[in-house]
Structure formats: C-alpha cells, structure tokens
C-alpha cells in the first residue's frame, strides 16, 4: 500500500523538530535533510497577516517505513510539537484533508 504525508501546515509553528528527528533517525549529516521547514512571511495579504511554515519532505524521506512496520509513528509525526503531521494510506489522505477543513493543508508523496 502506498502512503503519503498530510501536513496541517496552517498550524505548523516552525519548531523544526521534524528536521532534527529525521536527521537522527536516518543518520543524515547536518547539511542534508529528510524534511525541511520553509518559512513564508510574515507579510500582509488582503489586510491580514500571512505567516506560514511548511515542512517539505525530500527524496531521502521513506516515511519511516521500518518504524511503521513495527506499528510506530514516523519520527517526524511522533515528535511534531503542533501535531500537524500524519502519514496515512493514499486513499485516506483526501478524506482526512477534508475533515481538517480549514484550508492550509498540504499533501506530499515523497
């Protein structure tokens, strides 16, 4: 079954626990990443503040397949302080995204 990563990035606070967790779990050097948090803003759009952090997995992300086989959450999902990362089977991604319902949800299939 193929899995994807759903990120409720409207509530991502940019703590970067995912970046550090991923490097540790996959034993990556400091210059590389399995997931990277990008910052957008703060800027005013239509009179309101726009300020987002968006974690983007790289090609080195395997969605922690070994951990998932043991019934554990991927490291980034487990440690995510805002609890906005979910790794789900492909056919559940759209349903979960619509449940969250407030916009600013992204989906990655690394």
């Amino acid at each position: 079954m193929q899995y994807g990563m759903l990120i409720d990035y409207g509530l991502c606070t940019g703590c970067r626990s995912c970046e550090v967790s991923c490097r540790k779990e996959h034993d990556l050097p400091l210059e590389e990443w399995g997931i990277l948090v990008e910052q957008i803003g703060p800027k005013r759009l239509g009179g309101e503040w726009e300020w987002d952090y968006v974690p983007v997995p790289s090609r080195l992300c395997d969605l922690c397949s070994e951990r998932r086989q043991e019934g554990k959450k991927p490291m980034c999902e487990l440690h995510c302080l805002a609890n906005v990362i979910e790794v789900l089977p492909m056919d559940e991604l759209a349903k979960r995204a619509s449940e969250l319902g407030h916009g600013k949800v992204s989906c990655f299939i690394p």
Partner: protein
Amino acid sequence: MAADTAFASEENGVLKVRTCAWSPPGDHPVGCGLILHVQDGKLVKVEGDPDHPITHGRLCPRCIALDEVVYHEDRLQHPLVRDRADRGKNKWREVTWDEAYDLIEAKVREIWDKYGAESIFTLTGTGRESTLYAPVYGPAVLNTCNGASTYAFSGQACYGPRATIANYLLGAGVPEIDWAQYYEDRYDHPGWECPKYLIIWGKDPLYSSPDGFFGHSIIDLMKRGSKIITIDPRLTWLSSRAEFHLQLRPGTDAAVGMGLLRVIITEDLYDHDFVEKWCFGFDELAEAVKEWTPEKVQEVSWVDAQTLVGAARAFATNAPSSGIWGVALDQSKASTQAGQCFLAIMAICGYLDVPGGIAITKPTSFIGKWRYEMSDTISPEMAAKHIVDPTGKYALFNVGAAMGGVQGDTLLNWLEGMYKDYDCYYDLKMCWMIGTNPLACMADQPQRWYEAMKPLEFIVVQDIFMTPTIMALADVVLPLSTFAEHDGLVTPNFGRNQHFIGAMNKAFDNPNTKSDLEILIDMGKRLRPELWDRFESVDQFFDEQLRKNYDFGLDDVRAVPAKMAGYEYRKYEKGLLRPDGEPGFDTMTGMVELNSIVLASYGEGAVPYYEEPEFSHISKPELAEEYPLYYTTGGRNISMFHSEHRQVPSMRAMHPWPLVTINPVVAERYGIAEGDWVRVTSPQGHMTQKAHLTEEVNDKFVHVEHAWWFPEQDGEAPNLYGVWKANANNLIPHESVGVTGYGAPYKNGICKIERVDSLDD
C-alpha cells in the same frame, strides 16, 4: 538502571528507559516524556514517550539532539581547579571529586572562621533543575543568610515578581491556564471546558515552554476552538493567528491593563456575583482605572483604541476564558502594576478556579515547600545579617519574604562598595554559583558584575560546559551530570502550581559527574552533618519528601509516565485554599485583594497606577532624539535555552548567529541589509548582532537576542568567548527598578542602530 523495572526494559540488547526531561541541559520543568535507548552503556536514540499524558510523544529539538550534549567533546568531565591568580586563563588542573570537596570544605571553614559565614553568597539562574536545590546551598550547607534565591539580576526580573504578586493578591501559587493539565484523560476529562479566549501577554510560550507549561498546548486548545488575544510589541506567530493583537510600546503593559479593566468595568461586563462575594477593593480599582480611556491608552501605549475595546469585550463576555502572563511583565519597572492588572482582569471576569479558566493551587507544595523549610536552618543572629538595602529601599527583600534572596541591584551595589560607610556593611569573600552563567545571561551591566566579583577570594561554579563566567571567575569547577545521567523528580512550576510529578530516571552512567542534589547532600554532610547525615541516598531523599506530602512514594511515581495531581474547581467555595479550612482565598481579607494591603505596607501602590519607563521618548525627550528607536530583548528561539546550546552542532545550525530584528523600512533608513552586522547602542552601552529584516517588528523598535557567547572563540580573558560583544545586557540600566525592588527594564529601552563591519565593531 536495572533492566526490566517499571521504567526500563531490554529488547535485543537495547535498554529502553522511560524518563521525564528537565535539566541539564537547560530547560524548564515541563517534564516531557522520553524513551532513552541505551546500548552498551551509551545513549543511541531519543524517542518521545507516546504514553506521557502531557506531551504524548512530542519533543522539541533540544531533547531530540540530547546525544550531542551528552557526548560533546567540550563537556566538563572532571572537577577542575585553578590558582586564583590564573582567573581568566585556561590553566586548569583536573582533580578528583574528593580533592575538590576537600578544597571547598577547607576554604569554607577558613572563611567561616576569619570573616563569618555571612561573607559567603550563592547565585543561581533560571528554570533549571538546580532552582529546586540551589536555594538550599546557602542556608543549609554554607550557613549563610546571603543565599536562597539570589540572582545576579536587576529587579529579580523573572518569575519572582509574578509569583510574589500572585501570592499577595490571591494567596496562591502561580496561576496557569486550565489546559486540562491535571488529568490523565486530559481534554476528554468530564467537566473540563475549553477556554473560549486566551490572553497571551508578554509571552511566546510555543518556543519557551515556560515554568511547566507545555507551550504547544496552546495549539491543542486552538484546535478545540480557543481564540487568541496577544499583548506583545512583536508580531509573534501566535499574533498572526490572533483575533486581537495589542501591539504595545515596550514597557507600557500597565497602561494597557488598566485600559482593558476600564472597558470591562464601565461597560458592566464583569462578574458581579464573584466580585461581591470574593473580591476586596473593587471600588478602589474602578477609581484607579477610570482615567484610562481607550484614547488615552492609545496615546501612551500605541495600542489601537478599537482593538483594545474589542479585545476587552470579547474576553469578558465569553466565559470561560483564560490567560497567561510572561516574563515581559517582570521585565519592566512597572512589573507589579502590570501583574496586578492581569490578575484583576482574570478575577473580575469570574475566571479564577473555574473549568477552562485560571487554575490556581496553594502557594508551594512538595519540594517547593522543602526548600523554604531548609532556608530556616540559620540562626536568628545570622538571619539578621542578611544583605538588604541600607538606605531603606526594598523592605520586601528582608529575610522571609521574596523567596529569601538578596535583591540583585542591592548585591551589585554592595559588591561595588556603595554601602561601605554603613554600620551593617561587611566584605563578601566567597561565591558559589549553581545553574547560572551570569556574565552571559541575567547580569545587568555584565562588565560591572565581572569587575565587582573579581576581588572575591574564592569562587565555585558547577555546570556541564565551560562558560565565560567559569573562565572569568571560577577557582573550582564541578562537572554536572545531564538529566539522563541522574535520578530526580520533575516538579512543574517549581511546586508553585504542580499538575504532575514526573520521575527523572537515570538511563546510563557518567561516573565523574554529579547532580546538583548529589553535590548538595555531599557537601551538606561535610559542612552541616546535623542536617544532612540522615540522607543515605538520593532515592531515600525523594521518597521521604514525597511521603511527607502525599500518600505515595518514589516507586509509585516511577511506575507511571507522570503522576497526575487531579484538580478541584472552585476551591475558594469549599475551604480548600486556606490552612484554616474556611472558604475564601488565603489572603489577609480572605478575598482576592484588588486593593492590596500587603503592597501598600511595602510602600507600593495598593491599586495599579502608570509610571512611564525611565528611558523613553516621554520621560527623556532630549535623550530620545539621540536614541530614536525602542528596543526589546529576549524573544526565544526553540533550539537554545538562555546561554546554553551554543556549542551543540544541530542546535547552533538552526540559529547560527545572534539576530537583531529590524523592520525593512527602518533598515533601509540606516542602509542596513539582511545579514549585516549592526551595532545597537543605548544610553548604557552597546552590542553587535546580525541584522534580520522582518515585519515581526514595526518601524518603532528593534528586537535583540539575549545571552549570546561564542564557544568557538578564544575563551581566555579579555575575550572570554566573546561574551561582551553581542551581550544584550550591556544595554540594560542598573537599578531602574520598581518600588518593591522587583521589575527591571530588560525588555524596554531606547537605542540607536548603525551598520558596522564585524562582530568586533
């Protein structure tokens, strides 16, 4: 560390130890749940504990990178000594613990005999595990009146002001949002309600997780419907999601607070029943805030009048709502008045001690209480020598009040000899620093503190890494174990509002290091055996402390990820807040003292008032022409705890340089581009950081980071790891404090900025 205990199990040669995090390395007592994976005695992986009722596996980057601290090549691994003449030089000699202890014991006894124990003082820092034990070193080991909670810190401007004002006004420990933190079943707990609005005032808890509050529970609450009101000069990330952002001029919190109170009172939005039954002095409060119309608030604080009114209405008319107050309230001269406003708002809206409101408990509990009891182990004659301002200021800092410490400004004045002509004066000879690096963090005018400390005969410091303070001043250095290498207990809010007790379980050995508590017991046995001889082990100590206060012991705490406290609402109706069992609050009047008799007795206003900061465009208009911008300081970044983590590779990579945050419009005016070095100068001093251009600050102020030093630079004096170069505390005035001695303007002052070529300019 045994395998297959309640908190540890072995699987394929890997020992998995469940523990609750505190420090070292630096952190507050949030007690996040960890599973430490240990192979062949070595930490190989850190994993969040999904069964921990508060964190549910979530971790911030600092714990995830714990291995980089534990095995860092620069970690202190042996006690070190150095000749006093070599202070500032890297001329250390490794010694055994016994040799270090012998040396300290001999020196303390010599100082006791020659000068008296009062010539010894201790200094401590903020938030770390040592805050439980450091206050005991002075009275119960060194037998001095000048220990307890003493900081090299103007106005004791962190937590002490808030803890004290809460004690005076509510007779309670530190108030906290009711985030269902007391319950195993958390947000599903029957009877718990989600706060409708949260006021987040002078605080950025997502990145600081202060005192025991798991910062990202704000996100949990937002997902459950809480709306946000922020009161902050900075556009924080939370402010960008807030329904109301009250963007105030730094240091004008009391004006904003009185403005909010006026709206709530004049529009009759307050809880009449609660005010009539449980509040003392409402009429005086109403009178005090009457003049603070939204227009006047806007004129003084720059907060938009309509935003202020909207926030006050939304907050007061949506029960239950709650709030959280930050160190920014402590870090202004008017800390007392700002704190009074915060508590008065929560009280008159009827939000105290109700589901989804403000959670309060008794002032101290458990080890929090123990450390106060241990402060009472000096003789009355010794207590009478406690250093207080001899001119009569800050009476609150006499023994028995204000956490028993020496007021920080008074201490620097004393060290500098300002009081030499008073009869009460004597020379200080020795200092022991526990969990603090004051030259990098805390000390206002750090170079003055450095010069004032130099003449001391003997200085002991304990830490996990070499620091600028150790290199500059220490004669003996004791290496500490990390929280993964020792046993302990985590007590959120330092026992002043404790929602659980967590076991900190040793996962692996580092035999040449010790914990703050182990050193305390070891030296206690040597210097005051009558108090300490009965403690055979750390386990016995904790078990005894627990059983004195609860019907369970250490094994019961170790058996679970966190021992939850439970919570009873509306304790004031049930006689659960006062020692006499009567209904009401544990104050003199038995009510919430909106009009504070205690504050008045210390010469402070009984009700809030507004005092302009000492350095502003209003109080010093001519000076402000030369220094046209405001500065604020101390915003947290999650990869570092105050002066710590600068040498930890993953953490430093996340935030390589100290940043001065400047609005792009202002930067353009001064010809400053992203990444340029910028010198910030206040009337008191200057420092240099790297420019970061963002609209997180507006065109009226800049933000500078605190507690920077550079472990990669030359450590010897005069450079001392570059501790003077980017030091925000160079900007801070000495003794610009409130009437009580609490509150200092670490977060508000005036400055000018200019582009320079390097950190060394």
